[in-house]
């Protein structure tokens, strides 16, 4: 089992019960990264992040350094942190917020300095009542300590950071919908182009949007240098990453592992991670990167946890959410539940997504409930094809955002991998598994 000795970068403090307090933070190197950053020029800080090859941890995996370099120069620019975390089976960002809120604040300040933005916002999912309290508390402490606000640590650099609660809408995790929501509107994604946030973002001004985990890596990168980060992992996938492991494993949880050097099998079976499948059953299938990702079967367990490795195999690491389904799982039900989620959360702007998700959900529900028809499988694939023509990977997009093209992923995977199971449901009106 490859459990590498890579350092813990974002979870280093989590062994301490008081990891969220300023005292613990300061006694374990807290705000040293910020002090160091302030002693460098903004360009030097950005260069370290670029050298680290830090890929965004929110889902799309875009290099943070490159995104930063695209920020259009303007008198007023914004930094917005994406803490909406609602991709099903993803549960890592709120741990970072609850258990090490100062690390997140420090990361935000480093980014704000490197980007020389005028103001920063941290958008947290509204349901994170506890996280909102912890982060607000941490920010209050950081202000008192002099790390936020005016003339930080006497450097002459000033920045205000605002914690902003969402109110329950998955789509607000999509960065342009998030900006709409932050402007006090419904979370309707904007069309790109022209609304790439780096060009036209919050209040029409250039804006960088980065994920909570992406930000939380910055203090370490500044302290140890981009090269040290890039020495971990392999190729484009550098450093460590948090993986949220759920489903039929003995030890579900969030684990920080070195990228590429670790495989899905390591994560599922290593005693320090998943510890194997419950009841020592076989893996039937697993979702490798959140429910927007196509599924993998046992044959893909040995793939390395790397962005390109998983991408080339026809899926994505996405939000780092891995859900294991064992032999007792009804795949019709799994696909139906995921589709129901999309049908509920579609914002309704685009017809293929709005209408298609509802259709697909109803057809899957009737198959699951024993009322399936023979033509239903073709109907499912045809409707999916209307949302994302060709059903290829990465998917074609006919809609404003990629929620729509994510809908077919699980349906297509389930039918591809478990057609016989669907046929038994349809012909015999019962589930051959459960």
């Amino acid at each position, binding site marked *: 089992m490859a459990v590498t000795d890579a350092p813990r970068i974002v979870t280093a403090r989590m062994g301490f019960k008081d990891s969220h307090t300023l005292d613990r933070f300061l006694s374990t190197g807290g705000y040293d990264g910020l002090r160091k950053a302030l002693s460098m020029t903004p360009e030097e800080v950005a260069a370290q992040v670029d050298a680290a090859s830090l890929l965004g941890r*929110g*889902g799309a*995996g875009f290099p943070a350094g490159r995104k930063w370099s695209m920020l259009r120069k303007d*008198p*007023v620019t914004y930094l917005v942190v994406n803490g*909406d975390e*609602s*991709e*099903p*089976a*993803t549960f890592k*960002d709120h741990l970072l917020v609850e258990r090490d809120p100062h690390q997140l604040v420090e990361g935000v300040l480093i980014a704000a300095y490197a980007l020389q933005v*005028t103001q920063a916002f941290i958008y947290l999912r*509204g349901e994170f*009542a506890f996280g909102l*309290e912890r982060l*607000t508390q941490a920010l209050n402490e950081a202000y008192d300590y002099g790390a*936020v*606000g*005016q003339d930080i640590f006497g450097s002459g650099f000033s*920045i*205000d950071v605002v914690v902003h*609660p*969402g*109110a*329950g*809408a*998955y789509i607000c995790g999509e*960065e342009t919908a998030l900006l709409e929501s*932050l402007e*006090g*509107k*419904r*979370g309707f994604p904007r069309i*790109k182009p022209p609304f*790439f946030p780096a060009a036209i973002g919050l*209040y*029409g*001004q250039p804006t960088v949007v980065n994920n909570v985990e992406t930000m939380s890596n910055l203090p370490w990168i500044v302290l140890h240098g981009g090269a040290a980060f890039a020495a971990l992992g392999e190729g484009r996938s550098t450093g460590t990453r948090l993986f*949220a492991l*759920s*489903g*039929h494993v003995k030890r*579900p949880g969030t684990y920080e592992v070195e990228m590429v050097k670790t495989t899905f099998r390591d994560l599922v079976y290593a005693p320090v991670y998943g510890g194997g499948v419950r009841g020592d059953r076989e893996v039937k299938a697993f*979702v490798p*990167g*959140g*429910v927007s990702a196509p599924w993998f079967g046992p044959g893909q367990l040995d793939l390395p946890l790397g962005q390109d490795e998983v991408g080339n195999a026809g899926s*994505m690491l*996405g*939000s780092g*959410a891995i*859900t294991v389904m064992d032999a007792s799982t009804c795949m019709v039900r*799994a696909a139906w*539940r995921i589709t129901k*989620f999309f049908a*509920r959360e579609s914002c309704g702007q685009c017809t293929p997504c709005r209408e298609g998700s509802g259709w697909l959900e109803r057809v899957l529900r009737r198959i699951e409930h024993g009322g399936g028809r023979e033509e239903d499988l073709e109907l499912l694939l045809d409707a999916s094809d209307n949302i994302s023509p060709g059903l290829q990977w990465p*998917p074609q*997009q006919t809609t404003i955002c*990629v929620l729509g093209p994510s809908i077919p992923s699980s349906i297509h995977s389930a039918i591809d991998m478990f057609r016989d199971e669907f046929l038994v449901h349809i012909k015999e009106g019962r589930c051959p598994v459960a």
Partner: protein
Amino acid sequence: MSHLRPDIVERARELVSLYPEPRSALIPLCHLAQEQDGWLRPEAMEEIAALVGITAAEVRGTATFYDMLHTEPVGTYLVSICTNIACLLGGAEELLAHAEARLGVHAGGTTPDGRFTLEDAECLADCDRTPCVTVNHRYVGGLSIEELDALLDDLAAGRRSDEIPPHGTLVRVRRNGGLRVPLAQLAAERAAMAEAQADRARAAKDEEAAQAGAAGGSQGSEGRGTA
């Protein structure tokens, strides 16, 4: 007579002052109104509209987009049971069915005594403890049927009221102090922003004129974005 209490209005004004544009405070203000009333009363929406400078219809139109903002009364305890994929694999459907039978309401319903609202929730981001349950958005762990029964007993008897405030109270920690960057500095930035916007509008117009007939860009994609 104002419907929102003076202390709530004071906090609302503070929140508005944190943002470059008042409307940005809309969701935080809706949460505040729910802290006072448990849900978003029409009178509250009127006052929020005035505080952020939009119409009450705009407030309602925005609020109804969001699951956490309720324009109908909600029970004192909003019990949310996640039935999404990880919790489904952990027995969420059985737990929800039990909760429905025990409370005598379907998911989405409120008990006649106004004590409980039951919710069939999407992923609550605590998927290693399944089936995941929250009460008024506080995690209470992954619960067995027996544990859920005990929890409902406790809530009904008021035994959990310290850790779980009535529905609507989201954040009990208050940001200490208002805007930290001097208003004068922000005002200068606002002016610069307006100027930049005007510049851009002019530039766009010029470009449009210059490029009339040129091919449009391809459908942009950030790659494959998800949570």
